[in-house]
């Protein structure tokens, strides 16, 4: 059973401008390469999820980060890509 263990202790909140770490910080490989080093905005705070069917142990809080398509691709369409990313991959954009 998957359940949300705590959603209050998340470091980031909706609207925070974030940048994805360029490299794998802790051996958690679930961040696709195409967003590494890219800038986005926190769009949803999923919190800490337990999902014993798929893995043992508890991961850091999970967020849905929203990127402009043009940040990730050569496409100039004004569309968006949302990607679920764990907290250890994120830091606040320093220059906004």
């Amino acid at each position, binding site marked *: 059973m998957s359940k949300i263990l705590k959603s209050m202790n998340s470091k980031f909140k909706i609207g925070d401008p974030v940048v994805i770490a360029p490299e794998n910080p802790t051996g958690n490989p679930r961040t696709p390469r195409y967003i590494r080093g890219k800038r986005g905005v926190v769009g949803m705070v999923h919190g800490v*999820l337990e999902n*014993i069917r798929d*893995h*043992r142990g508890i991961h850091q809080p999970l967020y849905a980060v929203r990127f402009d398509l043009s940040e990730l691709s050569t*496409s100039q369409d004004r569309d968006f890509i*949302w990607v679920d990313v764990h907290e250890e991959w994120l830091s606040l954009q320093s220059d906004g």
Partner: protein
Amino acid sequence: MSGKHGHSHKPFEGHMHDFNAHIRAVEEDLEYYRAKRFEPRIFYLLRRGVLTFADLLQARVALKRKNQFFKTRKPQGKNIEARVRYLEEWLDEYVKGIALVSARAVEAMDMVTEDNRKERGDYDDFFKIKKKAHHGTLEERMVNVEQDLKDYQELLEVFVQALIHRGWSTRVELEQRWKQLHEERPWAGGVIVAKAWTDATFKQALLTTGREALREMGVHQGKVGKLVVVENTDSVHNVVVCTLCSCYPYDILGDTPWWYKHESYRTKIVQNPRACMQEMFGLEIPASKQVHVYDSTSDVRYFVLPKCPAGTEGMSEEELAKLVTVDSLIGAAEALSPFQLKEREIAHRELEMPRVRPD
């Protein structure tokens, strides 16, 4: 409820007579279910001593035709179309067989499939499971798939026999479950969306609480990750992908469509979503809408709440549910209009291919 609302092997653009595409879909699905659903389960039980290789070998030796759980199949079909249909049916049975040995009845052995994704190699190249490459003419590929299905089905049979022999399940228990797997049920995806279209309170609950909302309506709630439902509107079109593997709310919506697992979809949809939807599904998103692609990389599963088509005033929930296709819940299509549904039903009758795979 016809199978077309659940799982389907239809190719990207629905050419019914593109046999290459049908065979490609069978190849993709077969390898997926073998490599990702069935064999990891065997490894898991072997590693934990629930079953041993010796158990499997003994079960194979002891296997008599009259004790077989699954019916013996041989390749058949007078022409290519019949062979393809037969293969699709056979694959269906293989997939149901895997569901059978993954069922609660067999989980009395108190197992949790932790680290499952790692063991399957979903995220890590080091653990990546080698899949068969498929080459050759259509004829060669059909012969290959026929042989693979025969081999894989045999392993499944032996596995079932070993489970029974070791007392992890009984034949009666498995037979009951097998019957249930073949019962027709309305497809949950259609039921959920039709309710959301007709009941604003439910829709709100679905969009804000996900799985919680399903419990109240008596739909099987599932348990794979958190569920997020994203709504299509006049200004937003949503589409879902899993670029790392193939995360999908299969516990609610049933089997994953084959193209969702295909590398070309997983690559193109995040590079150029509009072009991808146009080329693969013939779906053109007007400039007035923004496209939002959801890449489901972890413990959250997404599906799209499509827009209710025009011309549906006065239709019952049951009728509305038929307009909801698997593709529309991923964002690869709009829900069917009542007219499109009619056309499809006629086409399916003509092709005599109502194939049912339960959710």
